Structure formats: C-alpha cells, structure tokens
C-alpha cells in the first residue's frame, strides 16, 4: 500500500483534500440536477481547441446532448459522494479525472485563445480544472480511501473473507 510510504499527517491532508474535492463535485452535480434548465450545450458550443468539433457535434445532437447532460449531472453527484465517503475511491478518482479532463479540453486556456466569457481568475494553460485534476491524481495514487474512508472497512471485510475461504 502506497499509504505506508507517507506520514500520518500527509495522509490526513490528502483525506481533507479528497473530501473537499468530493464536496465540490457533489454540489456541482446537485446544483445541475436541481436546476430546471441546466444544459452543457452553451459550454460545448463555445468549445475551442483540438476537440472543439467533437464538443460542438454533441451540442448539436439532441439525443447526445441529453445523454451528456444526464451523465454529467448524475456522474458529478455520484463521484462527489464516493469521494467524500472514501468509497471505491480509486474508481471515483478516475471518473472524476475523466470528467475534468473533458471540461478542460472543451475550453482549454491555451495560448492564443480569447474567451469572451469572463472567468474569475487569470489562466495560462493551467486553470483550476487542471489543479483539481491533479488533486484527484494524488487521491488516486495514495488510495486515500484505505486510510480514512469506507474503503478501509470494505478492504478489511474483503481480506477477512478471502482469508477465511482459504483457511
């Protein structure tokens, strides 16, 4: 287990990071689920960069857009809950990385792109999406759920069963 290589205080800090990122995912999901009119269409129509055509194609196809909206709303919510609980943490972290990678690639802050929608900060290649993506990578690699999270209980149960089975 990688966690063994880190100090207890480092693992606590990473757990806090996991809960905070989970909180953000969960609220992003819930806010979209409870909004009567949220759609990813606007964000995807404004897409720039190498994958712009892909995102614009999704936005222009009602069925694809509907699926994308559903996956985004429920996906963010579920990933958020899992991260906060430390349940299936690695799976949740990978899924979270997937979502954020898509958000990042949809409107990347690359050199030479001029966005007309104001953002709350100033970004050059690195934006907060990328920071959160890296945070999830840390959570994935350190298996924070095994330190403090339901994964610890699952892991214990799982090990006990396998041991019993082979006893």
């Amino acid at each position, binding site marked *: 287990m990688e966690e063994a290589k880190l100090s207890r205080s480092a693992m606590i800090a990473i757990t806090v990071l996991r809960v905070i990122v*989970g909180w953000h995912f969960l609220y992003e999901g819930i806010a979209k689920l409870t909004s009567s009119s949220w759609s990813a269409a606007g964000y995807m129509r404004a897409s720039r960069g190498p994958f712009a055509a892909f995102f614009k194609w999704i936005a222009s196809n009602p069925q694809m*857009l509907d699926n994308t909206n559903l996956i985004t709303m429920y996906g963010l919510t579920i990933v958020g*809950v899992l991260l*906060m609980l430390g349940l299936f943490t690695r799976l949740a972290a990978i899924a979270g990385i997937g979502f954020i990678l898509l958000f990042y690639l949809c409107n990347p802050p690359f050199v030479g792109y001029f966005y007309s929608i104001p953002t709350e900060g100033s970004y050059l290649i690195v934006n907060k999406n990328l920071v959160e993506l890296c945070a999830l990578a840390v959570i994935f690699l350190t298996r924070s759920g095994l330190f403090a999270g*339901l994964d610890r209980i699952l892991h214990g149960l799982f090990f*006990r069963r396998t041991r019993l089975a082979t006893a």
Partner: protein
Amino acid sequence: MAGDDEKRKAAQAASGEPRKLDRREVLKGLSTVPALGLFAYAWQTQRAFQQARVEEIAAAAQAPADLQEINIALLGAGAQGQVLTDAMLRIPGLRFRAVCDVWTEYNQKRVVNSLKRFKHEVNGYEDYREMLDKEKDLDAVIIATPDFWHAQHAIDCLKAGKHVYCEKEMSNTLEGARSIVAAQRETGKLLQVGHQRRSNPRYLHCYNKILQDAKMLGRIVTVYGQWNRGVTPDLGAPDRYVIPEARLKQYGFKDMHQFRNWRWYKGKGGGPIVDLGSHQIDIYSWFLGTNPSHVMASGGNLYYDPKTHEWYDTVMAVYDYDTPLGPAKGYYSTQTTNGSQGYFENFMGDQGTLLISESEVNFAGQLYRDPNAPAWDEWIQKGYVSAPKEQEAKAKSDSGAIADVRESAAPDQHTVPVTLRDPYHQPHLQNFFDAVRGTAKLNCPAEEAYQTAVAVLKVNEAIEAKSRLAFKPEDFKV
C-alpha cells in the same frame, strides 16, 4: 499510521488468523462520513435561502385585500409560455389554476412544477377543451400556442366566457384573425394581443410625450427598423421526450421537427418577419398614426434549407405611408446571419431622430436633435429627454473644422429617461389584468392587432408576388 498497523498486520499474518475488523478500523473507515452530513446541512441552508427568495416574489405578487384575484390558465407552455409565466409570477393578484400543453412529457411538466414552487396548485391538461370543461372558475386564459392554433384557441376560450391574452401573431391567416375579432365582439370578453411594446413605459413615453405632446421629431419622413439574429441549429428533442406520432398528427404536426420548429413552416407560423418584424412594424403604424398604403419586399432562404425552413430567413421590406403630415417610408429588415446590432426602430424626422428598442441593453432610447431644429430646452426641463451629451467631435463639426457640403453638422445627442426594470412582457400583461378588473383600457385590443396582422402578413405575400402590393383602407377594417 504505518507503525501500529504494520505491526498488527504482521502479527495477524504470523498467527495465520484472518484480519480483524475492529472498532478502530471501523471508526477510521467512517471518519469522513460526517463531512457528508455537513454538506447536507449546508445544502439545506442554501435551499432554504433560495426558497425564501421565491416566497418573497410570491408574497409580493399576492393580492392585497382590496384586489380581486384573477384565476388564470396558461394554454401553450413552450418557450413563450414560460416567458409570460415568469412575468405573471411577479404580478399581484393572479392565481394559476391550469396549464395546458400537448407536450405533456416536457413543457407541461416543467411549467406545472415551476408553478408549484410558487405555491400555485395547478392541474395539467393535454386537451384545452377538457381544461375549459373542468376548470369552471377560470377568469382568463393566456394563449401562447403556435400561431396556427391561435384562432381556434382564442375563439373557444372567448366563447367559454374567458378573457383572453393571445400571443402575437394574432393568427397565421387573416381569416383566422378576423374570426377572433368577430368572436371577441360577439362575446364581449376582453382580448389583448401580445404586442407588448404597446404597454412598455419607454414606448408610451415616446409616443405620448415626445411625439404627441412635444412633436420633437417634426415631420417623420423615414423609419428604419431591424432585427438581426444569429443562425442556430434546429430545435430538437431527446428520445425520452419525443411525442408519439399519433398525438403529433392529432394536433396538426407532421413530425417532431415540425412541432419544435413550427415557426419556419408554411401553414403553421410566418417566419422571422412575423415572429420578430410584427412587433416592430406594429410600432411603425402606431407612431406614424396610420396604416401603410403599399408594401414591396424581397426575401429568401439565403442560409437555411428551404425543405426544413419554408419561410424566409432574410426579409427586407419597404412600406409607404400617407401620414397626417405627409408621405413617409418605412424600411424593415430581418436577417438570419449573426446577432450584431440586435434590434431597434429608428424614426427620422426633419427636426430629430428617435432610436428606440425594447432592449434595455442596446439602443434603449436615444434622441438626436438636428442643429437647425427649435431648441429642446423646454422638453429637457419637463424631463421628456435628458440634457444633450457633450461631444468633442460635435464641437469640431459645429466649428466647420470637418463639415463640408457632403456632411451635415452633428446633431445633439439626448437619451429617453425611461427604463423598464421588469420583464419586457410584464406591463402588457398587467394592462390586460387591469382591464379584466375594469381599471384600465386594453393597449392592444383585437381590432388594433388585426391591423398589424394585415400589414405584416402582406410582406410574405409581396415576396411571393415579386411586386409592390397596395393596401386598401378597408383591408384594415373588420
């Protein structure tokens, strides 16, 4: 953590016992669960805050003791129905009773749910006749269905004894529009048509004060107006919301594409000249004080595929008017290209220009006084217009520095000091409900809207005829 755990695990492994899930392990496993509780608390607080704001709006719209409550139904809960609903939720003394829309899977559900958040207990209907049968307490029906349904919906509601607010265009055919006027006269019920600029305080100020009282523009000779919109993909619907074919046919649509994009289809809507131009051409006649005498027009599908967009995406029309002060021409253009310069109407007289728009963002109301026109000091003192804006370029042009025979001296720039902070449709709806209570006169009654329908529907006819068409004065009479 490493030390203790490792020792314990090593001990377990050495003894060959299964790893124990002790209390300590469980507590560590559950240690972040309280964060979810904290989240739930924060979210509930946030929801309570949002709900309080909704209730604040609902409370502001509650009828004072002396205000008669009006029971209303929405017939047609699409995009326009939603716009009207949002405006009506801010008007005191209304009680929503029913929402009717054939798209029960989406539109109807959405509006019913949003009304319930505002504490209106509404029933949803697919068939408006069932609604009229069952909802006996209704005082008024707000119609925002596709244009080709307006006549039948409005007539049946009027005949059922309801007052009607009907979206423009009154109908997609003049026969339909005429039959609405006839039903209104027969029943004596109120019928307001949704040319909402007629109740907009800025337009009313311009008409009553600037044009009628002060006559600040002098003789209006030309009018120019436009509405530019960007090209957009057709409206669609995800599979789970698609209306079954039998129901689409029952309500006059050949398929879901036509249902979602009816404005572009002949026999259903009238295209951008009707959807957009109608609002503004209505103002031409109102401000000029007369209906047009002729119209010539050119239009076509310059961008869209005529198979799915039967009406013209680009239209340019020129009207002739014989105003009480002399002849005038009105040019109107609606383009489906991009939305730059938006929409406005520009009235040019021999003494000044009025540039006005319903938009509060662009061209909300500017006036230009020709340097040779009588001074506007009196109107500035009365608050009809702002004092002129100081302009550096104008100082130069007045001194002759840049002006020559080709260029007139720059006019003074003023603004119209009236803004509308409410939703654009709210004053017009308010005027309708005031009329229902008997405290106001309708700003756009049936006969008035009919004249606009005559002027606007003729544009499509002129494009097809490829010639200048004449209006007879009796064309505008019902």
